């Protein structure tokens, strides 16, 4: 995936930050000489419309992930055969012209010909929906215990009343599960990337700084890793995670496995940059005052291209998310009771489910949107990373 080029092909090379007013532009010329590097990067980045959109979407995703339990209304683990495989049910927002949130109770029946469960709304009864209602218990941000949710049904259990995106085969609410899954999938990507950065910067730094045989060995290692089909390999490793392990341990091991995918590209970026900077005068100066190589690499060289590392990280994140989703989809990654996009999609593997309950395919949308947003953001960051070019 290394050859992703500038998507819009519109990387202008401005000497001047974009401003609408010509007079202001004159002023801008002076501004640019005193601007800090961070400001320059931000100005360059701001020009990239798709990247800005990506930034907004990614930020929204993480906000949703953080507030997942608050935004969810049903307990994502609460199963019930009474409401299995229910299609999405709308919420009414108007009651005879007056704004009011309510829904109707649903009565499940079994079709006597196809034996499929069908649901009919009872229009005569209204279940009002309250904002900031009490629901299942959770810990906000993992610390504050509470049971307040954005919405909840009044007078009836929320689990049996609101189904924005329908339910799965076990009667669990897909909307609520999707929110919790977003949190799992996005943070497993972050954790994986953190380990990937560590590996990439250390190995790439060493490879570029020392050169010679060390460089050859590390470069061959990367080449070999990149030429092997990864999915079968990670499947093999993931399958060895014992079934008896707790959810947290499985989560941790899958993060580790996933992270081993993302570091090679980063190592190459870091190596290239270190090679470029190694011969600069300040490096020699540092050597002459007796700095150790470790200090030179990590204190003097690496901070110079932090922005490149951030860009490469953003581009590595979608790879991790796809890796986790694929593994869980195959039943080799996270396992129930953990909820992630891959775990949810696992239920939609066969043609029966897809044909009879297409709403189970909903997690496809956040996966695709998240990957697109991360790619746009990463492309924009990469173009902006070197504002002097």
């Amino acid at each position, binding site marked *: *995936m*290394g*050859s*992703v*080029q500038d*998507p*819009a*092909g519109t990387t202008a090379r401005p000497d001047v930050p974009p401003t609408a007013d010509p007079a202001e532009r004159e002023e801008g010329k002076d501004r640019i000489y005193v601007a800090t590097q961070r400001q320059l990067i931000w100005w360059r980045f701001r020009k990239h419309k798709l990247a800005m959109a990506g930034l907004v979407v990614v930020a929204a995703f993480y906000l949703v992930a953080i507030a997942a339990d608050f935004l969810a209304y049903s307990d994502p683990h609460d199963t019930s055969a009474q409401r299995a495989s229910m299609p999405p049910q709308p919420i009414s927002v108007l009651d005879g012209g007056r704004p009011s949130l309510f829904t109707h109770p649903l009565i499940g029946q079994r079709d006597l010909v196809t034996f499929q469960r069908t649901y009919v709304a009872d229009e005569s009864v209204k279940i009002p929906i309250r904002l900031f209602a009490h629901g299942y218990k959770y810990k906000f941000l993992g610390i504050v215990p509470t049971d307040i949710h954005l919405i909840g049904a009044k007078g009836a259990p929320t689990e049996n009343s609101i189904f924005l995106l329908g339910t799965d085969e076990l009667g669990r609410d897909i909307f609520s599960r999707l929110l919790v899954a977003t949190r799992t999938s996005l943070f497993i990507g972050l954790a994986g990337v953190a380990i990937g950065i560590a590996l990439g910067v250390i190995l790439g730094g060493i490879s570029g700084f020392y050169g010679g045989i060390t460089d050859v060995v590390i470069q*061959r290692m990367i*080449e*070999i890793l*990149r*030429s*092997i*089909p*990864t*999915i*079968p*390999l990670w*499947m*093999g*490793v993931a*399958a*060895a995670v*014992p079934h008896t392990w707790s959810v947290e341990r499985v989560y941790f091991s899958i993060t580790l496995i996933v992270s081993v995918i993302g570091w090679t590209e980063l190592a190459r970026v870091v190596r290239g940059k270190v090679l470029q900077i190694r011969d600069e005068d300040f490096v020699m100066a540092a050597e002459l005052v007796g700095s150790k190589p470790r200090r030179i690499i990590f204190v003097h060289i690496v901070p110079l291209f932090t922005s490149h590392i951030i860009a490469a990280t953003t581009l590595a994140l*979608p790879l991790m998310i*796809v890796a986790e*989703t*694929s593994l869980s*989809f*195959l*039943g*080799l990654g996270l396992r129930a009771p953990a909820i992630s996009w891959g775990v949810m*999609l696992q239920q*939609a*593997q066969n*043609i029966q489910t*897809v*044909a009879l309950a*297409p709403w189970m*395919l909903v997690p*496809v949308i956040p*996966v*695709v949107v998240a*990957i*697109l947003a991360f*790619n746009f953001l990463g492309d924009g960051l990469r173009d902006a990373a070197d504002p002097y070019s």
Partner: protein
Amino acid sequence: MLRYIARRLALGVLTMWALSVLSFVIIQLPPGDFITSYIARLSQSGGTSAVEEVAGLRRAYGLDQPMYVQYLKWMSQILHGNLGMSFSENRPVADLIGERLLLTTVVCVAAIVFTWAVALPIGIYSAVRKYSMGDYLWTLFGFFGLAVPSFLLALVLMYVGFEVFGVSVGGLFSPAFETAPWSLAKVTDLLKHLIIPAVVLGMAGTAQLIRVMRANLLDELGKPYVVTARAKGLSERRLLIKYPVRVAMNPFASSIAFLFPQVVSSTIIVSIVLSLPTVGPLLVTSLQTQDMFLAGTIVLLLGVLTIVGTLISDLILMWLDPRIRLAV
């Protein structure tokens, strides 16, 4: 040129060695050895296993010896063409894998052919008609091609196929041909069924290649030799095909080195969604039943398939590009 070939071959051998070690690690990873699980399964199904039989099995597979001896034993067996036994199926691994591996190769090659056949003309079009409506449309397509993981694309296609066309997408053969011996009719049937897997697997690569081709060709189009050719009065079409496209195609050819591992990787998951009789579903079940001999061998063979594919593409590239052929 010989030096170039030798270098590629050496790297290929090194990669295969690394791969064999990794596959061996995968076989060894689950707790206990496969005899343990074999015996567990035997006693579950009511069979008894004498202590001597267990010891005999362990000796036959060299499980009582240190790790590196086990590895060497396994390797020498494989090099002699003996892929070992599958413990869950009680059949030689070679029997189980044979045809499936062939079909995996067929599916992968079909995906690559699709990628090339589609990406080349679109890439040229996008470069020549830069910033036109069509160019933007293809750029948009490229974004989605890159962002949609192939197995999700397969899932969505399956849904669309069922809802809109009322057909169940999937499989590589019509039911009539599934167990039939190979014949011309069966091959035709296979080709018909290949289209959907090829599209699904080729989508991501096509998106990448369109961008590569577009960027390469744009670099070439501004060069003086193009102007010269145009001044000479060459028709635009001939000029394009004869000079800049040929130059721009070289990095295009080398892209197979990263395309092939990607495609082989995705085949596994896509095969499960589209129920293709490749090694993918076999790998998943073998991992689920901890039939590690079978799983390790599949991982190894998939890797070998990738390495050989990459090697062949390197040789094609050398044949295409005199700069590589003559430089080294």
